[in-house]
Structure formats: structure tokens, C-alpha cells
């Protein structure tokens, strides 16, 4: 195989201006904040408009990226290198032919400089980022449509849309980043917005506490992000400056450095651990997952956006984006049991178990998200990059859909309650469309053929086994059965059985509670809620648990939601059904679009061919040539442990070349394995259905009251209900420990010891001064001291309130002390 000549890759306006995707919503945010309240739709039109614009550009960029990838092949074909058909598989390291690395399209500007290095801000678009850009823009757009109706009449409608728009912008900025600092920027913007949105109804303390908790927990993880970025920067900087004409923040440079074999093991291991800690915090992995369920305090569209394509996916994305760091750091190439895989595996199981004991429908979904993120992490941790990234894609659709369904149920079915046991049941008759979408998404989530989750989740599990992690393979399968179980329970409680509480049209308890509140505090409270509400004219929010007061229709019984709510749900349900076919590996190679367009090619690229894309430089359009191919002996068959000793990420690249992505292994789909996982899911469903009918419908005496009778059952339930006591550990022990005893002790030291010393010196000085004044003749006092005392005394008189006498003495003493110090210094200097 010979290096191809430098070939021209196609590009296009959308690819080169992809930075607009992140910038437009950011500008939209500013416009909403400044002028939103004066606009006819109170700013929501700006949110929708900007996200729509981003979606259009992202779509264009996606299409152009595919053209770019294809253009590499046609160029190649023209140059006579190997092949002409648009068949992307298998990878060279798996016996296929070498394909050229498709260089990202980047356009950046100088953002800041330090030590003579210039750091950029802008966009760098490759397959992964363009996929996520489109996904984020698309989901955000749908969620905002949903919100139009869902939060109508909210007391802070404009703020809501502003924060939602900024939220999407943060994720987009992060996804398109070409350097770590921009990643941090987007990452923290999302943290801020989650704080604002979770605490949207901050009048209630529980909400503001949840907001604080979310921000704070993520911030704990962010220590890892700062430290990891520092390690990577100083680790990769020299390599980047020497070879790639860029700097150590550049993501491409970090990837190349990690795979170059020049990085010291210690450095890269520490960087990987530090960064993964950040991802644990952001993506709600064990043991920092505790903020996610509490984050349900925010409005439902927020949960939906947060849990599908933004925020929690950020951690997974970061791992996928700078995958070589983790690949090398955790020795994934050689089947090392990585930190990521272990955390992912634990998270899958523990959060799935927690989902069983939740009564709040949103919390079930929240734990489900945590569990699914665990799958993604597990996949990345064992080298199954492609299925994990594909799962981000499919999961976004069905999880977003499930949350919106939950929102629809509470909006129109259960009178703003999210309590499945108290206020739901039997809703399938009243809300057929919501029910249908819910069922489709549930099937997708649980991985039933042929819905979306099947194609992605099964691939992850399959690859885990294929790469030699047998135990984790069974963990993944077990998790799938658990998923089927808790989703069945939730489905049953919401849509089947007899309607209860609000679903049965009962008047809501909250009315009474709130009415009492009003009676107690009188008109003041009422005016308060109205005060923040002057812009929308609705005054009747107080009767609503979540402050949203859409009471255009007076009937309080359950009914189907309106069109604006149903439209996004239906679109998402459709995608939950079909999106899996975009990378349906078992159907054959021609279906694997993700592998072709999203997964970077693990080919070494000659330094000469890489065109520096420093900040402020023009966009480069040249495809780097394939480096002299790494010798490959064409072992193909998928077993992961048969030792790919060559290829990117499996040894050092040739001199003067760089790799940007490791040669990951792809499992060959096997019919038996597919059957096995489908059987496990079916078993999960069967058991759960049987349980639901026995427990909730027939009230089987053997099950009802089990927790009272059996100590084991009670202990287990309590352990789960208390969320493994992690919150107890964090809040009661760590946070309270730092906030009270430790902080108080530090402050005590400050006041008593440090300040005590200062005051003691002052006091002692005053006494000594008095003694000196009384006992030693004043005439002996140095003239200079007198002089300074005089000045102080004069000014003291000028300003009456001063304690002139004291100033006099203090001043004299201090100069005396300084004089002594001076003598000491002089003596020491002379010697």
C-alpha cells in the first residue's frame, strides 16, 4: 500500500461556518434576556428561531461531512488506490483496506494567548461532533416546541426560554470545540444553566437545594477537569508545538500525543483518571450520580433536554472525543480492566435497582438515564467506541420521548403530579397517543427488536463480550433485564389498572395546602407571586405544585394533551422506532452508516500532510495522505483478544506520522448472541408483568406487606429507598462537616489565634509603651519617633473621632519595631 498523494477533500459553507451553530443560540440567549419580555411571544420565538437556525446549519454540515467522507473515496479511487465503491468496512486493522483519515474542518480565532502561545476559539468538525451537533440542535428544537405549551403562563416564562437556549448553546459550544478550554467553557455553561433551570421555581426551598446540589456535585467532578486539562496541556504541549504546530490544548494534538508513544505512562494515566472523574460528575456515574434524580425538581422539558442530549451526555462525549487518552491511559488496547468499564458496570446495576423503588415517574426515568449512561461508559471502557457513540444517538430519541410523555401525563392526565402511585393509573384510555409513544420508547429503551435501543445497546453488550470481558458482558445483560423490569412497573402504574387520585379526577390535595398557605400569610404572598408575574398576566399559579398555571380548559379530569405537546412526542417516537437502522450492524456492512461517517479512521497520517490550523488561520481543505501503511497481516475475525499488535493505538506510529484514533475492534454479529439478549429482555418483561399483575392488581397476599414481614426484604428496600446512603454520606457527613465544624474551626483560629496574636501584640505594645513612657525619660526617645508621633497626633486632632493618643503610641512603637528589624537586616546584609 502506498501513500496517496495529497488529495482534495470536499468541504463547504456549512462545515466551515459550523461555529455559527453554537454562536447563534448564545446570541439568542442574550437577546431573550435583554428584550424577551417585550416581544410578542415573550422571547420563546427567539429561542425557537435560533435553535432552528442551528439545526439547519447542523443539517447542512452533516450532509457536507458525508460528502467530504465520500469525496475522499472518490479521490482515492481516482488516484488508483484500492477501491471505488462506497463500502466502508471493515477497517484496515481488521483485514480491510486502509482508508484515508478524514481531517476535521476547523475554523478558529485567537481567543487568548499566554507565554507567546495563541489559543483558539471556534469549531472543529469531524464525524462525531457533527453527529452530536445535529442531535443536540434537533432535540433542543423539539423540546422548545414542547415547552411552548407546557410552560405557558409560567411565572418566569422568558427566563425559562433564555436558560434553555443557553443550555443548548453550551452543549453545542462544547461539542464543536477544538481545544480543551472551549470544552471547559461549554461544560460550565451547562452547569450554570442546569443550576438556573433546576432551580427554576426557587421560591420553594427544595428546588433551590436541588439546584445547588446539581451544580455543586458537578463542580466536585470539575476538579478533575481542571487538573486533567493541566496535565494534558503540559504533557502534550511540546509534542504539539514541535510536530503539529499547535498547542497542548488542541484536541487533535492531545489525541496524537496520546497515541504517539512518547507520553509517559504516569502522565497519561493521571490525566485519564482526572478527566474521568469529571465525567463521573457530569454524566452522573456512580458514586456522583446522586444529583441527577434530585434534578427532577426542574420543569419537565429541562429534565428531558438534560437527560437526552445535553449535560449528562457531555461526560460520555468527552471520553469519546479524546478517546486515545483513555485508550492508552487505561490500557484498553490490551484488554485491561479499565476504571471506566468498572464504573460503567456498577452504575448500570445500582441505578437500575434504584429505579424499582421510585414512585415519581420522572425519577424512574432519571435512574434509567443513569443506567443507560453506564452502558455508554461501559462500551467506551472496553473499546466498544462505535456502539457507545451510537447509543448516545438512539438513547437521545427515546429518552427524550419518555420524558416528554411523562410531562404530557402530568400536564393533562394527573394534574401536575408526578406520583405514579397516588395520581396515575389507567391513563391509556384517556391519552392514547401519549400511551403509544411511551410504549414505543419503552420498547426502544429495553432493546426490543427492531426498535432503536436494540441496535445500539445489544451492540455494546455484544462488543463487551467480544473484547473478552465476560463478567461485564453478563452485567450488561442483567442490566437489560432490569431495564425491562422497572419500565414495565412504571408503564403499569401509569397507564394500566384503575385511575387513582388526580387521574381519577379527584381534587388535588395541593390546592388545600396552598390555600392554607395563602390564608396564613395573607395578601402578601399573593402579591409576591403576582409581582414576578407582571408580564404574563396570569395570577393563579399558587394552586400548582410546579408553578405552571395553564388552566385554559377547566376540566380537571385526564385528557389527551394538545398538538404542540404531541407533535414532538410523535416525532421522537417515530425516531425511537427507526433510528436504529442508521447503524444496523447485524444487517450487514452497507447499513453501518455510523461506522463509515462517524468513527474516525485509525490511520497514521504523515506530519507533512497535516496543515497547521492555528487560531486565526484559514480553513484547510487538504486531506492528509495515508502514511506508509502499517504492516498488517490481515487477521480478521472479530475476537478481540487475538492481539492486534499493529495499527494505531497498538504500538507507536511510524516516525513523522501521527495517529488520531486507535484501531478499535468491532464484534461480528452472531445470531445466537442476539437471541440470548432478546431472551433475557423477554424474561425481564415476563417477570415484571407477572409481578405487576400479582402485586398491583390482585394484591397477592404473599407479596403485599412483604417488607413488613421479612427482615431481608425490609433491609433491602430500606437500603434502596435511602439510595445506598450516599446522600447521607455526602450531605450529612461531608458537606455538613466542612460547612460547620471545619469552617468554624478555621474561623475560630482566625479570630482567636491569628487575630489574637495581632491584638495581643497591639495590647502588649500599648502596655510596654505605657511602661516606657512612665519609666523612661521622654527625652531619650528618638527624635524621628517623636516626629512621626507628632504627625499622627496632628492628623488625629484634625479628625476628631480618632483616638489620637493611641495612634501616637502605636505609631511610635511600630517604628521602633521596624527600626529593630532594620538593624537585624543590616547586620545580616553586612555579614
Amino acid at each position, binding site marked *: 500500500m502506498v501513500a496517496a498523494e495529497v488529495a482534495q477533500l470536499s468541504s463547504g459553507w456549512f462545515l466551515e461556518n459550523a461555529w455559527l451553530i453554537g454562536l447563534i443560540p448564545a446570541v439568542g440567549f442574550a437577546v431573550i434576556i435583554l428584550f424577551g419580555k417585550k416581544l410578542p411571544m415573550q422571547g420563546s420565538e427567539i429561542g425557537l428561531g435560533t435553535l432552528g437556525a442551528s439545526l439547519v446549519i447542523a443539517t447542512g454540515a452533516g450532509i457536507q461531512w458525508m460528502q467530504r467522507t465520500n469525496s475522499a473515496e472518490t479521490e482515492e479511487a481516482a488516484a488508483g488506490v484500492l477501491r471505488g465503491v462506497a463500502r466502508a468496512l471493515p477497517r484496515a486493522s481488521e483485514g480491510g483496506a486502509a482508508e484515508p483519515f478524514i481531517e476535521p474542518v476547523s475554523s478558529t480565532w485567537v481567543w487568548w494567548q499566554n507565554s507567546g502561545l495563541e489559543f483558539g476559539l471556534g469549531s472543529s468538525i469531524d464525524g462525531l461532533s457533527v453527529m452530536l451537533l445535529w442531535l443536540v440542535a434537533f432535540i433542543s428544537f423539539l423540546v422548545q416546541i414542547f415547552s411552548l405549551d407546557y410552560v405557558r403562563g409560567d411565572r418566569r416564562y422568558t427566563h425559562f426560554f433564555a436558560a434553555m437556549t443557553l443550555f443548548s448553546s453550551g452543549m453545542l459550544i462544547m461539542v464543536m470545540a477544538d481545544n480543551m478550554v472551549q470544552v471547559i467553557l461549554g461544560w460550565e*455553561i451547562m452547569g450554570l444553566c442546569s443550576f438556573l433551570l433546576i432551580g427554576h421555581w426557587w421560591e420553594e426551598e427544595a428546588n433551590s437545594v436541588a439546584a445547588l446540589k446539581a451544580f455543586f456535585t458537578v463542580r466536585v467532578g470539575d476538579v478533575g477537569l481542571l487538573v486533567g486539562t493541566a496535565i494534558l*496541556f503540559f504533557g502534550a504541549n511540546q509534542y504539539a508545538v514541535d510536530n503539529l504546530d499547535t498547542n497542548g490544548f488542541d484536541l487533535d494534538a492531545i489525541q496524537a500525543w496520546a497515541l504517539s508513544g512518547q507520553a509517559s505512562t504516569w502522565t497519561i494515566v493521571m490525566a485519564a483518571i482526572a478527566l474521568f472523574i469529571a465525567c463521573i460528575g457530569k454524566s452522573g456515574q456512580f458514586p456522583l450520580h446522586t444529583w441527577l434524580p434530585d434534578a427532577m425538581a426542574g420543569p419537565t422539558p429541562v429534565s428531558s433536554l438534560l437527560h437526552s442530549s445535553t449535560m449528562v451526555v457531555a461526560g460520555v462525549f468527552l471520553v469519546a472525543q479524546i478517546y486515545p487518552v483513555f485508550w492508552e491511559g487505561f490500557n484498553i488496547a490490551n484488554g485491561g480492566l479499565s476504571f471506566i468499564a468498572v464504573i460503567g458496570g456498577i452504575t448500570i446495576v445500582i441505578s437500575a435497582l434504584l429505579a424499582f423503588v421510585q414512585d415519581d415517574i420522572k425519577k424512574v426515568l432519571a435512574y434509567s438515564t443513569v443506567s443507560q449512561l453506564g452502558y455508554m461508559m461501559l462500551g467506551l471502557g472496553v473499546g466498544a467506541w462505535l456502539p457507545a457513540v451510537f447509543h448516545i444517538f438512539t438513547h437521545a430519541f427515546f429518552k427524550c420521548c419518555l420524558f416528554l410523555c411523562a410531562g404530557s401525563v402530568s400536564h393533562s392526565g394527573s394534574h401536575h403530579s408526578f406520583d405514579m402511585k397516588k395520581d396515575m393509573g389507567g391513563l391509556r384510555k384517556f391519552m392514547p397517543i401519549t400511551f403509544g409513544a411511551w410504549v414505543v420508547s419503552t420498547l426502544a429503551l429495553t432493546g426490543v427488536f427492531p426498535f432503536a435501543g436494540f441496535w445500539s445497546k445489544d451492540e455494546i453488550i455484544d462488543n463487551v463480550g467480544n473484547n473478552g470481558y465476560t463478567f461485564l458482558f453478563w452485567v450488561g445483560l442483567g442490566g437489560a433485564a432490569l431495564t425491562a423490569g422497572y419500565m414495565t412497573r412504571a408503564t403499569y402504574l401509569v397507564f394500566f389498572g384503575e385511575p387513582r387520585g388526580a387521574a381519577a379526577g379527584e381534587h388535588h390535595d395541593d390546592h388545600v395546602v396552598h390555600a392554607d398557605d395563602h390564608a396564613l400569610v395573607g395578601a402578601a404572598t399573593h*402579591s409576591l407571586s403576582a409581582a414576578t408575574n407582571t408580564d404574563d398576566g396570569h395570577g393563579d399559579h399558587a394552586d400548582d405544585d410546579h408553578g405552571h398555571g395553564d388552566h385554559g380548559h377547566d376540566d380537571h379530569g385526564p385528557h389527551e394533551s394538545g398538538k404542540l405537546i404531541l407533535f414532538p412526542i410523535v416525532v421522537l417516537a417515530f425516531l425511537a422506532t427507526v433510528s436504529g437502522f442508521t447503524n444496523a450492524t447485524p444487517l450487514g456492512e452497507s447499513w453501518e452508516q455510523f461506522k463509515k461517517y462517524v468513527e474516525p479512521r485509525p490511520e497514521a497520517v504523515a506530519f507533512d500532510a497535516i496543515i497547521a490550523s492555528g487560531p486565526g488561520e484559514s480553513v484547510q481543505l487538504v486531506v492528509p495522505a495515508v502514511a506508509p501503511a502499517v504492516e498488517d497481516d490481515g487477521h480478521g475475525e472479530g475476537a478481540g483478544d487475538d492481539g492486534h499488535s499493529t495499527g494505531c493505538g497498538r504500538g507507536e506510529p511510524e516516525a513523522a506520522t501521527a495517529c488520531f484514533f486507535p484501531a478499535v475492534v468491532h464484534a461480528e454479529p452472531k445470531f445466537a448472541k442476539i437471541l440470548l439478549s432478546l431472551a433475557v429482555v423477554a424474561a425481564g418483561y415476563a417477570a415484571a408483568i407477572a409481578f405487576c399483575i400479582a402485586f398491583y392488581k390482585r394484591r397477592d397476599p404473599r407479596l403485599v406487606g412483604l417488607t413488613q414481614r421479612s427482615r431481608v426484604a425490609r433491609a433491602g428496600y430500606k437500603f434502596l429507598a435511602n439510595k445506598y446512603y450516599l446522600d447521607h454520606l455526602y450531605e450529612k457527613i461531608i458537606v455538613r462537616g466542612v460547612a460547620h465544624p471545619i*469552617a468554624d474551626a478555621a474561623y475560630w483560629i482566625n479570630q482567636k489565634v491569628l487575630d489574637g496574636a495581632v491584638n495581643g501584640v497591639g495590647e502588649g505594645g500599648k502596655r510596654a509603651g505605657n511602661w516606657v513612657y512612665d519609666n523612661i525619660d521622654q527625652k531619650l526617645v528618638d527624635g524621628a519617633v517623636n516626629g512621626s508621633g507628632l504627625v499622627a497626633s496632628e492628623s488625629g486632632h484634625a*479628625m476628631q473621632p480618632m483616638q489620637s493618643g493611641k495612634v501616637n503610641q502605636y505609631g511610635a512603637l511600630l517604628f521602633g519595631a*521596624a527600626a529593630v528589624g*532594620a538593624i537585624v537586616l543590616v547586620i545580616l546584609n553586612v555579614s
Partner: protein
Amino acid sequence: METLTDQTWLLTVGTFLPLLGALVLMFWPKDDESGIKGVGILTAGATMLVGIYTLVQFDYGQSAKLQFFVDAEWIPVIKSGYTIGLDGISLPLYVLSMAVTFLVMIYTWDNMPDAGNTKAFLILMLVLQTGMAGTFIAQDLILFFVFFELVLLPMYFMIGVWGGEDRRYASLKFFLYTMFGSAFMLVAFLALFFQTGGESFGFAQLVEAGASIDRDVQIWIFAGMFLGFAVKVPMFPFHTWLPDAHTQAPTQGSVILAAILLKLGTYGFVRIAIPMLPEGAKAWAPAIGILAVLGIIYGALGCLAQTDMKRLIAFSSVAHMGFVMLGISTLTSFGINAALFGMVAHGLITGMLFFIAGSVKHRYHTLEIRRLSGMLIQMPRMGWILGFCAMASLGLPGLAGFWGEFPAILSAYQPGFGLSEPLFRTLMVIAAVGTVLAAAYLLWLYQRTAFGEPSDEFKGHSDAEHAAVDGHGVAHSLSAAANDHTHDGDDAHEEIHDVQLTEWLSWTPFLVAIVVFGVYPQLMFKVMDPAVTQLVERLGASLG
């Protein structure tokens, strides 16, 4: 040191113009309140214009060189000259001092502290401005010392006369503490002078000659300077004057203190102590780094223990200046750039926080966190501004604070000149943990004061609430009625207004600057980086 000598009058005018205004004020009739305030604003505004003109005239292509340079004879007997100049390191701070004074002046229009005597207050403020600006342009040790000390007196009187209940203790403590440090600093200056052959107090000469002083001697001289500057910064454990001074000072004093005065210390390290005594700096760097990080953690813990909003902000200054000092202690251009950015960012953000604290105190007559609640309901705009500043203060990227904090932490990973990597990397991790604590105390403060419902004590006394009940007309007349400062301390039923016009005028530039420098930090890095890089290169030349 290469210098540019165009427009030599510019710095002198910019620095001493406030004194002219002070002189005019001295002969102004004492009863003419608005006249006095007008002259004050006019003078500060004119100074600000000179500052803007300086910004325009500054040659950004040569920001490593001293510009508008003057080297005139001053006190030949002691070989001290009137040497002034401005480069990329001092330009941002110099202009910041002018801007802050001007905006504080505007704020004073409606918010004169209770003790009265506007005339004296404004005169002191103008004198203070001359001292601050002079410190940043001085290129001669004696001149620097004079300006450095000139700052002390006005602030002493501002706290002592217009301060809170405990003002005497606080002002005295502030004065003596700083004096104590200055005395050592002066001795160190003299020692440096004599050790370099007693030829000149000019910075250029001392930087040239200082490096050749014996290492042990350098360490001792550095110790003297360290005391002087560390008290001013303030570094742990010399910080105890700060919470008292800040808490007791009038709002104007707190803002200037936080925004500019603290920077005199850090500026001194960057401009004087480190370049003139490279060996001393290298020997002291680990100690400075450790104290800086102690300050970060300790300041944050102090914040968590506070029950008073203003005192909490004061303690947060200790933590933030810890980041600045950490950056400096690495002796790398990366760290020093971060420190310089951090100084300006801290000035803007913490200055703004003190403004808010002052305005809250003005309205509620208390800053006790327990009694404040639901600020977002009573004063929505003020509440959002507080939230914005809290976010900026905890180092959110996209706002100015981040660019001081993040590179400073980063720089500690690889300190310069063979400083211990394990030590500084440990410091880096601890400093990073400090950012979590910062988030904790700031958000906790915000949650307690801004979220929730207003406490019973103040419920129903705000414009925002009235506007809802009575309609706009009535509320407006109420606010107008309460607007003419006739309150007498214990009037708990005074109306609580949202942000007022003078507040908007004086705050908007701060808020805009926090966003602009946060979004596009290159504006400042581009100016500072060449000067800092040159400084560190020179350091490298003498440290080998």
C-alpha cells in the same frame, strides 16, 4: 530597558489631575453638596478621559516596553528620580484605578455614607486616586514608596470616619498592620539600594544590578519586601486586617480597597521583588506558593463560617488573592499572566460584590444572611446582578474570573526554574479543590439571600411587591417619597427599591467589563503577555 518617550506629559497629568480637583474642593463652600459632588465627578471623569486617551495612545505592538517614559531629576541627594512609565503589566491596573474611582464617585452622588462631610470624603478619594495611579507608573523605588504610602492615609480616614460601628478598631488595625509591613519594605528597599552600589533607585538599574547580589543577601532583602507586599495582598497569615477593614469601611472604601489597593501588593511582587531579586524570589517561591494555597482553602473556609454578607465577601478576597499569588509563585509567564488577569478580574468582580453589599445594607440596614431572604422577589434586578457576580466570582468560564483562576491553577503544574514539581502539583490539586469551596460558599450565600420568600421582617416593603398590589402609580410615588434620604437608622418600614439610576450608571461598566473580558480575554492577555514574557526571560537569564 528600552523605552518610548512620546507624550511624556500624559502620565503625569493622569496621575496628578485628581489632586487639582482636591485643591479646588478645599476652597469650595462646604454646604454646597451637589456642587462638591459635581466637582468630584468632573475631576474623576476628566482623569478617566486622560486614561482613555492613554489607552488610545498606547503602542500595543510594543507593550513590553515602557511607554510615555519620563526620567527627570527629583531628589538628587539620595539619587532618586522622578521616573515614570507604563507597560503592558501596569497599563490595565492604571486604567482600572481611574475607572473605579470615577464610578465610585458616581455612586456617591446618591449614596453618601451617613457620617456626612462630603467635602472631606471626596477630597480623600481624589488623593487616594493619585496614590493608586502613581504606584502603578512609578519606576523608581522611592517614588513608588511615596505613592504606596500615600494611599494609606486617605483609606485610614475613610474607614475611621465614615465606617461602621467598629470603625476605630478596624482603621487602626489597617493602618498599623500596613505600616508594619511598609517599614520592613522600606528597609529592604534601602538594603537593595546599597547592595547594588548605591547608584540609583531607578527600577531599570536595580533590575540590572539586583541579580548579581549574593544569594543569601537576596533572600533576606526579599523577606523584607515580602512582608510589605504580603500584608497588602493580603496573604495568609497576614490577612486579619482585611475582614475588619472591609466590613467596617463605607461601601466606597470597600470597593476601592478590593478593586485596587490589594493589587498594590501583588503588583509589587511582579514589578519589584521578583525581577530585582531573582534568587531571592526562587528561594521564597515555594513558601509563597504554600501560603497562597493555604489562603485559598482557609479563605474559603472562613467564608463558609460567616453570617455577615460583607464579611463573607471580604474573606473571599483572601481566597481569590491566593490564586493570584499562586500564579506569581510559579515564576512562569503562564502563571504571572494569569495573576495579572486575576488582579483585574478580582477588582471588577469583588468590587461589584461590595457595591451590592453596600446597596443591600442601605436598603435592609443589615447584612446578616439569616435575615435576608427572597431578594429576587423584592429586588429582582439586584438579585440577578448578585447572582451574576457570584457566578463570575466562582470562576465561571465566559466571565472574567475564570481567566485569572484557571491559568493560575494550570501554571502550578509546571513551575519555572527547577522549583519542586511534586510540591507545586500538590498545590495545584488543592487549589482546584478551592474552586469547589468557592462554588459552595457563593452559591450557598446566593441560595440563602436571593432564593425563597422574603423574611417576615421585610415582607411587603419592596417596590416590586407594591407594584403588584397597588399598580404602578402608587408604588412610584412611594419610591419617590422614600428617595430623599431622610431615613433615620431604625426606620424598619422604609421602602426597598430595586437598582436605582446612579447604581445603574456606576455598575453597568463593571458588569459589561466582566462579560467582555470573560468572553474575549485576548483583549487583556495581548497587552500583558509580551511584557510578562520579557520579564520571565530576563529572570531566566539571571537564574540560568
